[in-house]
């Protein structure tokens, strides 16, 4: 839409005289944005302060140079922040939202209001303290071209603007119920996420990098050294389980804290008949609005640990949530919660009950392929390496190889069987259901009318096993949803049943079915 449109009015015409057609005045962002802009200098300044503390205030030449560089950069950033703030203007005209930016080159981006699909408000910790919020309005077209980001506005202004944009985007108001709200009992699922284990290592890595950055070598610190000397060697059978326990407890506590921060004040609701909004966060509040027309389905996620604890989380399959990374972050509509609640939220988001999904299992060949894969890729390589080394060097390694096989083979077998049990596909109402995965099991319900294309992939191995992987392409979520290793005989028929008419002209009765009917 053209940005020249409102210029029909003569320059001297007072704006309030003709409110219907007068050009909207350009508005500036909140001046406190400049302060936010400068805050990322906090990290280097902080590390410098730590260095000063650690060295007792005696800074060497290098530190002074660093300080000088930081000062210069700081001045530069502050100046550019002021200029950027002065140059950035936005307005909402009768039919578009427009943003004028540019430090050196000026650019104007306009998004027609009827194209606005989602409006998000986010705020990081600093912005929250200052009472600011970032508003992003997107067309859902994908890529950065279809998005306007106002960074940052005063919070009330952002809320008002979102309401205005969504109202003008053609959404109707309705009093649909809240699908899910904050619930402290959900915290018990927090330790069942990856962060319970990975978080400890991530935190340890972070601490290590900070110490390394300010020049402290951890193994030189007296306490650490003494602790290691005292416990490290002597009682390994006590130390190792104790260390594991400590890591687990630490991880669980960290995971609960992270969960609480991210999902504080969580609320999932239909703000009107056409907009689903999820809002959460303690220090950083996140709010994502998804338009119903962009909603293509839901994914019920049950990672291994969470599944063992009887929990699940839910993601929306929706277009226009950004690239893969952003989509992963913004599509979550229910954090890890009980399975029953997850199903309820799925139904609420889809607008019709799916019930517990009952799916068509896949042929036995799929089980065989999973078992072979688990054994050949996970159990065999270490065993072979150990055996070869053992044969060359010392027989101890041979015992290790045997032990590994005895230990890993049953685990691999169990995981392979679990992966097979997870496979399934089916049709339910207007949805296509797909389930797969063992470590990250996902059940996805896709709107059948949203399927843009079908792909059938097979390899020489899978052809011999009589299975094929069918992929339903949609312009939402992860793009393609795979039905892995379904029977090659029924794949095309199933795809045609899911999307009537799409494959019809390329189908023919199967020769094998004609020859040996009841096989």
């Amino acid at each position, binding site marked *: 839409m053209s940005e020249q449109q409102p210029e029909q009015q003569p320059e001297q015409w007072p704006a309030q005289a003709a409110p219907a057609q007068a050009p909207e005045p350009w508005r500036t962002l909140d001046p406190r944005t400049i302060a936010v802009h400068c805050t990322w200098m906090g990290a280097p300044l902080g590390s410098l302060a730590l260095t000063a503390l650690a060295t007792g205030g005696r800074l060497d030449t290098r530190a002074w140079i660093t300080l000088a560089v930081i000062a210069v950069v700081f001045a530069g950033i502050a100046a550019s922040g002021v200029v950027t703030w002065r140059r950035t203007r936005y307005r909402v005209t009768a039919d578009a939202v427009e943003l004028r930016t540019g430090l050196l080159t000026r650019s104007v981006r306009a998004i027609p209001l009827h194209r606005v699909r989602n409006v998000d408000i986010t705020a990081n910790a600093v912005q929250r303290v200052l009472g600011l919020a970032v508003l992003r309005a997107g067309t859902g077209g994908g890529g950065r071209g279809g998005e306007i980001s106002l960074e940052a506005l005063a919070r009330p202004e952002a809320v008002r603007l979102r309401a205005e944009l969504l109202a003008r985007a053609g959404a109707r108001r309705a009093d649909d119920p809240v699908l899910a709200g904050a619930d402290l009992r959900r915290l018990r699922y927090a330790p069942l996420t990856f962060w319970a284990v990975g978080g400890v290592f991530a935190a340890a890595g972070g601490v290590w990098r900070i110490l390394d950055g300010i020049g402290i070598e951890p193994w030189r610190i007296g306490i650490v050294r003494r602790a290691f000397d005292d416990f490290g060697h002597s009682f390994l059978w006590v130390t190792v389980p104790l260390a594991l326990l400590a890591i687990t407890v630490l991880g669980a506590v960290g995971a609960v804290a992270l969960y609480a921060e991210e999902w504080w004040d969580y609320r999932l609701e239909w703000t009107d008949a056409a907009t689903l909004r999820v809002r959460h966060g303690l220090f950083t509040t996140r709010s994502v609005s998804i338009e119903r027309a962009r909603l293509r389905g839901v994914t019920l996620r049950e990672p291994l640990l969470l599944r063992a604890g009887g929990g699940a989380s839910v993601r929306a399959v929706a277009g226009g949530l950004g690239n893969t990374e952003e989509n992963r972050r913004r599509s979550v509509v229910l954090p890890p919660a009980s399975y029953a609640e997850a199903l309820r939220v799925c139904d609420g988001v889809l607008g019709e009950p799916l019930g517990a999904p009952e799916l068509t299992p896949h042929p036995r060949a799929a089980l065989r392929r999973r078992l072979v894969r688990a054994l050949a890729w996970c159990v065999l390589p270490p065993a072979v390496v150990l055996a070869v080394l053992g044969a060359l060097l010392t027989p101890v390694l041979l015992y290790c190889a045997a032990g590994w096989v005895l230990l890993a083979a049953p685990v691999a077998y169990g995981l392979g069987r679990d992966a097979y049990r997870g496979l399934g596909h089916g049709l339910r109402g207007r949805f296509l259901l797909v389930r797969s995965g063992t470590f990250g099991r996902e059940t996805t319900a896709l709107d059948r009318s949203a399927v*843009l*294309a079908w792909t059938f*992939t097979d390899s020489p191995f899978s*052809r011999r096993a009589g299975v094929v992987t069918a992929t339903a392409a949609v312009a939402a979520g992860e793009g393609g949803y795979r039905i892995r290793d379904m029977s090659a005989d029924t794949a*095309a028929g199933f795809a*045609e049943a899911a999307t009537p*008419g799409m494959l019809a002209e390329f189908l*023919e009765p199967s020769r094998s079915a004609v020859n040996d009917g*009841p096989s």
Partner: protein
Amino acid sequence: MAGHRRSAQTQLMLRPPRNGVDPRARRWWTVQALLTVSGPLLLVAVALLVNSLLFFPGALPWLAPLLLVTCVLPAVAYVLAMPRLRCRIHAWEVGEAAVYAAGGWLLRKRRIAPLSRVQTVDTVRGPLQSRFGLATVTVTTASTAGDVRIAGVSDEDAEWLATRIADAARLVPADGDAA
């Protein structure tokens, strides 16, 4: 197995697309294989052999078989098998309502996209392809997992494909996704 028997009577299979690739495509893929994979591999083998012949004749007894297995045989197998398999598998067809393409050599990929969902039709001729009078037509949809690629068609076919699909996409009313 019981679940599959019921559908066995009315089972429908996907047939291969009607139109194969241009006969020149085989030469194109052969040259491509030589330039990208087989040629460099053979060059490495020859260079190593010549070097060892000149400077380390003692290494030949183990180096020659090693190179044969790791470089020469894979290179020859690739340049012989890949174009042949591609010619057998690659095919395309534009139906009443959908475009259908098969591709790949070891991994076979068959993709069907309805014409009503087509967004753009791109025709690309690489420097090598244009020498053989070939082109690659890519039909894009709104999903990255839904782009249909038809490689190794003759220029005339590519032109026909592009106009045919673009016309059809215009005629068939776009559903749902455009707005």
